[in-house]
């Protein structure tokens, strides 16, 4: 649709680019300033995790799961560990289940904080970026307090968690949960209330409901387009059915709603964490698990509501200590297709905000 006499200009928003949140490359075809087509080219961080899973035992693969979506480390290992337990039909003690929910929801809050931070950084909002990273540091302290590593704690084991939390974990978590609500007021004030951010994000990058379902989008991007679907409610795994929290759904389908939804999900996660903190029982944290884990022959597909989308683990075991096939269906890998579907007609600066609202992490996209 270029006006006659003007040609289409194609550039590389390549692997090393400040706004692509990692090594994501897209060839952008421009007519002046308006984007006509985008071809995402991924694979620049493809480390072949599925192939390596076939040459590692079940417990050896747990640290790799943290490095898939490295912003919400514990949440990926939650999916993998529960899939293997489903395969071995293992019963996890109560306290371990609660600790898993606490770590998973902390991972979700940390991931959503980085999403809001990078979303605002892409519109040159430096202050929200430092506020979100300041709050995220407190979550990383909690991870480090128990498991030693900040971002990828590698804390879950098949059959429970590796060890109990130290005594100063619960008070620290409690004080973090008490401070969080007024931090949220800060974010609303700086970023979501800021009219520059609103004018840059409101009604930009519309993803209609039917297109979202047809593109198999899952997670917060789907709920921002008005589809009430969350695996924690649709198909509760672990002990998520004991907590009462609601699923925020927004119907704006635009970039602003996708960002706002992450903020609402942080509020829901705080609600879950408060209930988990209130009624966490005492007791063992690890089930009776044989020294060498040899699940029976079988296939299992276990889905987990990862902050980036829905993460599916399809594990096929042939009775030996190493899985025959570990298939990782990551939310961000399928959500990438949303970009080329809705980008035609927006300007190149809108492309940056739409890309930020999809909340991609390249470790998860490229596996």
């Amino acid at each position: 649709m270029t006006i006659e006499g003007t040609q289409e200009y194609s550039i590389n928003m390549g692997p090393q680019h400040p706004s692509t949140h990692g090594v994501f490359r897209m060839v952008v075809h421009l007519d002046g300033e308006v984007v006509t087509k985008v071809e995402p080219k991924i694979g620049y961080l493809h480390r072949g995790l599925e192939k390596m899973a076939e040459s590692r035992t079940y417990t050896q693969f747990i640290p790799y799961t943290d490095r898939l979506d490295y912003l919400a480390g514990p949440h990926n290992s939650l999916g993998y560990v529960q899939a293997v337990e489903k395969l071995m039909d293992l019963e996890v003690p109560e306290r371990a289940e609660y600790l898993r929910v606490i770590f998973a929801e902390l991972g979700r809050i940390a991931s959503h904080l980085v999403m809001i931070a990078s979303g605002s950084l892409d519109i040159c909002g430096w202050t929200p970026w430092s506020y979100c990273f300041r709050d995220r540091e407190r979550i990383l302290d909690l991870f480090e307090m128990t498991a030693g590593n900040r971002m990828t704690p590698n804390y879950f084991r098949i059959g429970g968690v590796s060890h109990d939390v130290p005594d100063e974990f619960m008070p620290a978590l409690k004080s973090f949960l008490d401070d969080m609500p007024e931090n949220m007021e800060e974010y609303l004030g700086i970023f979501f209330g800021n009219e520059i951010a609103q004018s840059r994000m409101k009604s930009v990058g519309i993803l209609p409901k039917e297109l979202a379902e047809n593109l198999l989008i899952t997670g917060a991007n789907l709920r921002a387009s008005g589809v009430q679907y969350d695996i924690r409610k649709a198909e509760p795994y672990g002990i998520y059915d004991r907590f009462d929290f609601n699923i925020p759904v927004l119907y704006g389908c635009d970039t602003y709603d996708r960002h706002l939804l992450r903020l609402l999900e942080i509020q829901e996660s705080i609600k879950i964490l408060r209930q988990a903190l209130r009624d966490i029982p005492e007791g063992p944290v690890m089930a009776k698990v044989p020294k060498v884990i040899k699940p029976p022959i079988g296939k299992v597909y276990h889905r987990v509501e990862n902050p980036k989308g829905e993460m599916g683990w399809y594990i096929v075991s042939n009775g030996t200590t190493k899985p025959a096939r570990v298939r990782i269906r990551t939310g961000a890998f399928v959500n990438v297709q949303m970009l080329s579907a809705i980008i035609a007609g927006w300007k190149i600066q809108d492309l940056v905000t739409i890309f930020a609202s999809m909340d991609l992490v390249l470790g998860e996209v490229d596996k």
Partner: protein
Amino acid sequence: MSDNFAAVGLLLAFAIVLPVVVMAVVHLLAPHKPHKEKLTTYECGNEPIGRAWIGFKSNYFLYALVFTAFDVETIFLYPWALTFRKLGTFAFVEMFVFIIILIVGFWYAWKEGALEWM
């Protein structure tokens, strides 16, 4: 009317000498090792696609033209704004004639659609 033009001459000399000195020092001291890979165009680490010498829409150029026209106008306004009380009413009216002529030009550009941003 103060006529000590020495200050202005000093400022002019300093304004010319400083860049020359800095450029010379940089030229002498900075390591200068151009090799083929370094001089390739930077496009996020990839080979550039297509040609950069293409025809793009003309309204970007028109926008720039309208801007330069009115930028030059403001340059004329500065000295006048400082001293119009001393210059008397004639200069005052004369400048407004100048502004009105440019407003007509602005109106014409606006009507012709030079300011649409597609």
